[in-house]
């Protein structure tokens, strides 16, 4: 049953990705500006322009261009960046780890903060504490990551400058890393001095990304917990002698987390979408920051590559959440 579900999802995934590729391709090709003209010095001859157009395959029809590009993508060839004159796949893979690390740290913050608030809110249900948590959730939900980021720059970058507000790592440091996953590798190599520097750069953008998601988790999980807390097996656990906190953690949390999980998956893709502007805000050298540069430079192959990688990431996350849900739910598992 799970396998069948998996295969169906895989098929829809392929359709969605194909759709994304078509949409980006069409949108980019209706652009009035000519990227080739921008690349050449003024006074270049028409012959030079034509030669370069042919080199990037821009002299063929849109449909032809699309299928040439698609064939390349299926072979792992995303083309060459026009502005940076490097292999697109290499560029993307170089930057993707930075964005992934940022997103994962943000997700961890969101789950931790949201989870703790949900448990406290459920334990203190009906009191002023719960009302306070509700108000904080409402505010965190209404304000998007971009504004949180700006507010944090003011507070933690200027008024009380405890964190770095620009870049991914301090330029003066020597980096011994062989992968682009600096944070994970620094932990793995036990270079905690570097971990600290990386986290100091990452904390504010990650927190800005995490807050709206934390609020959603807190709200939804608290609601599910409260619904569970009057059920018979929870009452039975109280009779057994467990404290209210223990009852919530032992009996209710796992069952309440299941419905929350589905939503967190979708929301995590929104969070990753938010990295584009938040990375820009903090000059963090990730995929999103590169994407904005690519758009400004009209770097068609690079834009296509980045958008497709984002889309792939999104559908993979949704797939993973769906599968995780099926595995975690004993009733689905045993069928």
């Amino acid at each position: 049953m799970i396998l069948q579900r998996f295969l169906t999802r895989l098929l829809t995934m392929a359709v969605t990705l194909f759709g994304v590729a078509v949409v980006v391709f069409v949108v980019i090709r209706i652009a009035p500006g000519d990227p080739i003209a921008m690349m050449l010095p003024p006074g270049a001859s028409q012959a030079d322009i034509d030669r370069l157009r042919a080199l990037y395959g821009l002299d063929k029809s849109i449909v032809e261009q699309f299928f040439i590009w698609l064939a390349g993508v299926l072979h792992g060839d995303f083309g060459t960046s026009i502005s940076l004159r490097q292999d697109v796949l290499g560029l993307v893979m170089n930057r993707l780890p930075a964005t992934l690390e940022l997103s994962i740290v943000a997700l961890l913050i969101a789950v931790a903060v949201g989870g703790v608030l949900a448990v406290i809110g459920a334990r203190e249900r009906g009191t002023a504490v719960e009302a306070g948590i509700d108000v904080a959730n409402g505010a965190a939900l209404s304000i998007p990551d971009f504004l949180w980021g700006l507010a944090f720059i003011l507070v933690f970058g200027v008024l009380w400058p405890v964190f770095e507000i620009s870049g991914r790592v301090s330029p003066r440091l020597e980096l011994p890393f062989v992968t682009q996953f600096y944070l994970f590798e620094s932990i793995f190599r036990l270079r905690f001095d570097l971990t600290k520097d990386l986290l100091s750069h990452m904390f504010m953008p990650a927190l800005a990304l995490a807050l709206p998601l934390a609020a959603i988790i807190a709200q939804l999980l608290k609601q599910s917990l409260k619904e569970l807390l009057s059920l018979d097996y929870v009452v039975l656990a109280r009779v057994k002698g467990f404290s209210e906190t223990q009852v919530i953690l032992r009996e209710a949390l796992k069952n309440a987390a299941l419905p929350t999980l589905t939503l967190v998956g979708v929301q995590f893709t929104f969070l990753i979408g938010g990295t584009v502007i938040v990375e820009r805000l903090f000059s963090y050298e990730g995929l999103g920051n590169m994407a904005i540069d690519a758009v400004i430079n009209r770097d068609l192959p690079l834009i296509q590559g980045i958008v497709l990688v984002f889309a792939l990431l999104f559908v993979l996350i949704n797939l993973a959440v769906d599968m995780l849900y099926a595995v975690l739910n004993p009733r689905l598992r045993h069928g």
Partner: protein
Amino acid sequence: MADARTAKTSNARIWLAGGWLLVALLATIFAPLLAPQDPLAQDLLYERLPPFWMQGAEPGFWLGTDSLGRDLLSRIIYGGRVAFLVAFAAAAAACIVGSALGLAAGYFGGWTDRVVSRIVDIWMAFPPVLFAILLVAVLGTGLSSVIIAIAVIDWTRFCRVVRAEAMGQARMDYVESARIAGFGRFDIMLKEVLPNVLPAIVALLSLEMGIAVIVEAILSFVNLSISTDDPTWGGIIAEGRLSIHQAWWVLVFPLVTLFLTVLSFSQFGEGLKARFDPVLR
């Protein structure tokens, strides 16, 4: 008792949020009367003046000036013109496109629904901010590009909600009896289904205006909104971000304005939903 309390907070939300939005809207409409200075006038003698309560402030420049000596208050007021214009136009456009497709998908079901749902899926796989930036880059900067870009990326929000509502409503008895009474499908959709999904649409519209304000600010932050001379909240913020250590006020005041406006739009929408949603009430 709990219901009375909910009603009271939702009323307070509507009045507070609506009040701020009204004040901000009026200020932008009467900007030429209210703004103390010309928002574009540069004066290098008056660069980076602090706000009025600080040492070194000049009368007439209430919130200080930026690095080119332009009056901050006047720029924020004029920047509101772009923000509100984009908010209303983009939200309306997204609402019309999304609601129409959502109604069609939810009411007709079958192939219409499958095609619309597939398109929504594809749209959900785009990082929205990047998509908006890409669209504006392609369409060329300018007010209409910004509005079109926001409508194009965010119509799905309306489509999903309206589709779900219309699906539920289409199964209800009163739609069935309208059909038996001989009304055409289109008539039924407009007369019976639309009024019932209206509360959801109105709440979403308010929320979408807040989102449009943010997206416009983001676009002008990366210098892709309207022409660079005209003041926009995002543009002022981008400038403030650069001079944050020399003149914090250039970042703080537009940021606070943006905070309040976005918060108000979403709280206004939530308040309306709590009041008019028959299920919640």
